[in-house]
């Protein structure tokens, strides 16, 4: 008897046979198969009850209604609100990406106080009590020194209750310096002010217009209320409405238009005057409407007839005189023709002369104040709060001149000239404390270096940003606001709408972090600052304030999500014929109608840099979310490189080829760019998109491309103080 290796062999065989007849191999194989179908690290979204919450989007001034799909208490998708007068179910890509902002990594999660140098990104977390008392103490000190007017606020908008609360706070406290970020609204406001005698927005009933003449407006690229504009475009397509786009670059709007007329940049005003020339010469204008006898009209007529014949306009604009003649006739003979301006998305102000010249076309054809025409629209009327009492310091402070000069002297017609803010601070106007609300001036104002210098001069900066943006990064204290999906807020949509709508943003989800509504925070600061400021804010909290302000509309706003009752939203002003002064009361019309030139050396800078707006890149307060940056074409952004558009002829002249690197130089700075050849851009121009080159935010956005604001500056319009720059001289050198 001997146990040899064959016994062990036998044991093994027996074991294997037993194993084969046991569930181990089969079950394990099956289970492994299942295991490989879903790795443990791949997220599995929890299921639950699906509900929809109606709210409003605040990511741009468009004022769209949204409907947010929720699964239990998670928001999972933002959709356009069906039946909303602005967007009726449609929604833009930025609005769709809102949840990436809500749940994104770039939120400021709790009040922060700066620990290191400004912009260094070192912060200590503080409580809300500490944060508010700190700000209140600073304000107290300022007031004590009697320098209440050195407090300023830059807000993304001046519409709605939250900006109104901030403005009220400043006023009671004793500062006139409530500013809003610059836009074409500034220009339209001044134009209305000088030609009609009151400040109003301009609204366009584009849905019913019969002919659209756009002077570089990105009608389908985010101008006005973007979704509404795209919907209007579709209705034009359907009805066969003619659209003519005047622009140096084949933008999407130009491509979509029936006719694209390339124009020398900055000479759009001259084309408008040339068209006016033809219209007047051929007596195609509405005599009854312009009141031929009015002195404003006569001065205007004399000017255009003598200086802006198609011949001379051809020289200025580069557009053939035949084209001008034909366009003028086409425009004037059409039913309900509308001329419109505001470059790109209308984020820049432009010259007053351009707005006046374009508005003159609308006036000449009499398409004012009627269906398919142009309207003057007052600011929303529903914010009517009781008067307040301020103390002596406050009363004196509010009477002082604004830092940006708006409202006094030669800037008398302007409401806000934030474009002048940085220059004013740098040249000595003191700002001791700055509130920054829903805006990112360090990033989005032109001439970044200038703005940064100005910010360095301001001793205390309070950011209310929900996100760690460039301005928040350069502030001293951050009081993070809820994002719009976590808060109540009235959202007036006024951008270019002839019938304004007020929507209600509602908390779709409970606040995700230790943030506070900016409306509540300003109320708390007011309380902490004490009388008389505190007395001007009698509300328990922001929601009470909003409910009280909305009054009997509160219920409707909650139920429908919006109100378009003109009595509530804003009053459309009735403009009687002849009321519109085409000369704007300006003594020397040649100052109004003058080309905007950079005075720099044309030898060192033979080209022009033209910033352009892209729908797929957010360029305001909101940084482009990951989904949106994903849609950016690789002819615009490749890796970290930005691509500038140039005509192949320009490329040849500069020894460049598709995809090659170049140094883009302007008087303001230089940047390394890549070159994209595009037949749709005028030779001699270099086009660069706005909205890239963020230094703050997360890795999905930061460090990608160049911020065009670093390369451009401001050019002050002598007639208005507006920033009339449309670009800057530049050179492109092969790198």
């Amino acid at each position, binding site marked *: 008897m001997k146990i040899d290796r064959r016994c062990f062999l036998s*044991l093994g065989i027996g074991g294997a046979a037993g*194993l084969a007849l046991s569930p181990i191999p089969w079950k394990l194989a099956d*289970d492994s198969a*299942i295991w490989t*179908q*879903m790795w443990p690290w791949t997220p599995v979204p929890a299921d639950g009850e699906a509900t929809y919450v109606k709210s409003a989007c605040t990511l741009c001034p468009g004022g769209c209604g949204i409907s947010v799909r929720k699964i239990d208490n998670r928001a999972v998708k933002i959709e356009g609100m069906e039946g909303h007068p602005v967007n009726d179910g449609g929604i833009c890509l930025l609005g769709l990406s809102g949840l990436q902002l809500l749940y994104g990594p770039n939120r400021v999660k709790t009040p922060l106080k700066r620990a290191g140098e400004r912009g260094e990104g070192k912060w200590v977390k503080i409580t809300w009590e500490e944060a508010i008392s700190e700000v209140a103490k600073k304000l107290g000190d300022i007031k004590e020194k009697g320098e209440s007017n050195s407090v300023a606020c830059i807000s993304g908008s001046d519409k709605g209750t939250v900006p109104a609360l901030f403005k009220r706070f400043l006023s009671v406290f004793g500062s006139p310096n409530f500013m809003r970020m610059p836009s074409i609204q500034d220009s339209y406001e001044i134009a209305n002010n000088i030609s009609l005698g009151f400040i109003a927005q301009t609204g366009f009933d584009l849905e019913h217009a019969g002919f659209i003449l756009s002077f570089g407006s990105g009608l389908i690229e985010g101008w006005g209320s973007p979704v509404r504009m795209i919907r209007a475009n579709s209705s034009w397509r359907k009805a066969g409405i003619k659209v003519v786009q005047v622009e140096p670059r084949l933008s999407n709007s130009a491509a979509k238009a029936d006719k694209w007329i390339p124009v020398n940049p900055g000479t759009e005003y001259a084309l408008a005057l040339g068209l006016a020339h033809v219209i007047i010469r051929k007596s195609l204008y509405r005599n009854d409407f312009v009141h031929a006898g009015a002195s404003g009209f006569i001065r205007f007529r004399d000017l255009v007839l003598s200086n802006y014949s198609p011949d001379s306009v051809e020289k200025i604009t580069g557009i053939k005189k035949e084209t001008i003649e034909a366009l003028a006739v086409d425009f004037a003979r059409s039913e309900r023709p509308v001329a419109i301006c505001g470059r790109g998305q209308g984020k820049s102000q432009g010259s007053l002369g351009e707005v006046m010249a374009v508005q003159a076309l609308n006036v000449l054809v009499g398409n004012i104040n009627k269906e398919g025409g142009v309207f003057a629209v007052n600011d929303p009327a529903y914010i009517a709060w009781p008067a307040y009492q301020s103390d002596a310091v406050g009363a004196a402070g509010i009477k002082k001149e604004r830092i940006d000069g708006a409202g006094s002297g030669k800037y008398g017609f302007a409401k806000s000239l934030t474009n002048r803010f940085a220059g004013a601070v740098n040249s000595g106007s003191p700002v001791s404390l700055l509130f920054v609300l829903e805006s990112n001036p360090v990033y989005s104002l032109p001439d970044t270096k200038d703005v940064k210098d100005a910010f360095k001069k301001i001793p205390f900066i309070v950011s209310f940003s929900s996100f760690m943006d460039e301005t928040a990064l350069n502030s001293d204290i951050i009081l993070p606001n809820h994002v719009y999906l976590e808060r109540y807020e009235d959202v007036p949509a006024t951008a270019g709408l002839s019938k304004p709508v007020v929507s209600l943003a509602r908390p779709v989800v409970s606040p995700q972090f230790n943030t506070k509504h900016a409306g509540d925070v300003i109320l708390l600061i007011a309380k902490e600052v004490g009388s008389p400021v505190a007395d001007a804010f009698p509300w328990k909290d922001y929601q009470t304030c909003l409910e009280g302000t909305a009054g009997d509309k509160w219920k409707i706003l909650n139920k429908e999500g919006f109100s378009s009752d003109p009595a509530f939203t804003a009053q459309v002003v009735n403009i009687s014929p002849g009321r519109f002064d085409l000369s704007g009361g300006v003594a020397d019309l040649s100052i109004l109608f003058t080309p905007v030139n950079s005075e720099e050396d044309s030898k060192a800078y033979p080209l022009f840099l033209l910033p352009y707006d892209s729908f797929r890149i957010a360029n305001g307060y909101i940084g482009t979310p990951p989904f949106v940056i994903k849609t950016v074409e690789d002819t615009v952004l490749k890796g970290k490189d930005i691509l500038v558009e140039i005509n192949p002829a320009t490329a040849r002249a500069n020894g460049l080829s598709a995809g090659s690197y170049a140094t883009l130089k302007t008087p303001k700075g230089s940047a390394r760019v890549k070159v994209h050849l595009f037949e749709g851009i005028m030779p001699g121009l270099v086009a660069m998109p706005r909205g890239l080159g963020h230094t703050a935010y997360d890795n999905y956005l930061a460090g990608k491309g160049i911020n065009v604001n670093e390369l451009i500056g401001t050019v002050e319009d002598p007639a208005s103080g507006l920033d009339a720059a449309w670009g800057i001289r530049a050179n492109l050198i092969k790198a």
Partner: protein
Amino acid sequence: MSTPDDKTKGVSAETGGEEAVASFKGVDEKEQGEGPGGFIVLFFIIGFVASLIIGWVIFPKLLYSQKRQPVDFNHVLHVETVDNGCESCHIFREDGSYAGVPKLAQCADCHQEVQGDSPQEKIFVEEYVAKEKEVPWLVYSKQPDCVFFSHTVHVKLAGMDCVTCHGPIGESTSLKPYEENRLTGYSRDIWGKSMTGIKKNSWDRMKMDDCAECHEKETGRKSSVQTDKDACFVCHK
């Protein structure tokens, strides 16, 4: 060349010899009916039985972890007090989706206060209702994420009863332990109660083939180009 060759030859002869001896011995002993022959069989049986025991007894215990439900729920007690059977609590929502295990709010309709003298109810009210915390129920029949399962179509359209897939859970007075497959993380009720893979009841397993079997029988649809059965997207997402 010759030396190493010789050496190897020598070695090989040796080994060969051993082999030969061993096998001759084997034959010899076999003839006598004694020796390793018996051991060979014995060892075979030992190996065989040991693997069977490991496979059928120990392996299942290792494969599944047992978890207790947070609250021991008595189905019988509840079914008696409601009018509409299972659907009284396991409701369909108006959008046609199925709510599954009731939410706390539903339970709290009745259980705001402790109703009876069950210690489990006391735990439920004190730990969950009072603290407004959802009960982390372990769902026996939870399907993998890739599965789209519509209760509506099975219950409302096809008129199936709950027992077909869920078994007589409504007749239980206590919740059985939840057995989770350690490898896949799925419930044993879905992935096969019996280790043999043999189903005694329709609810013993709810894998794809089980669904497909019934679908083929009941719907007879041949919408899939690939399989001539129900198309993939009928049950998957």
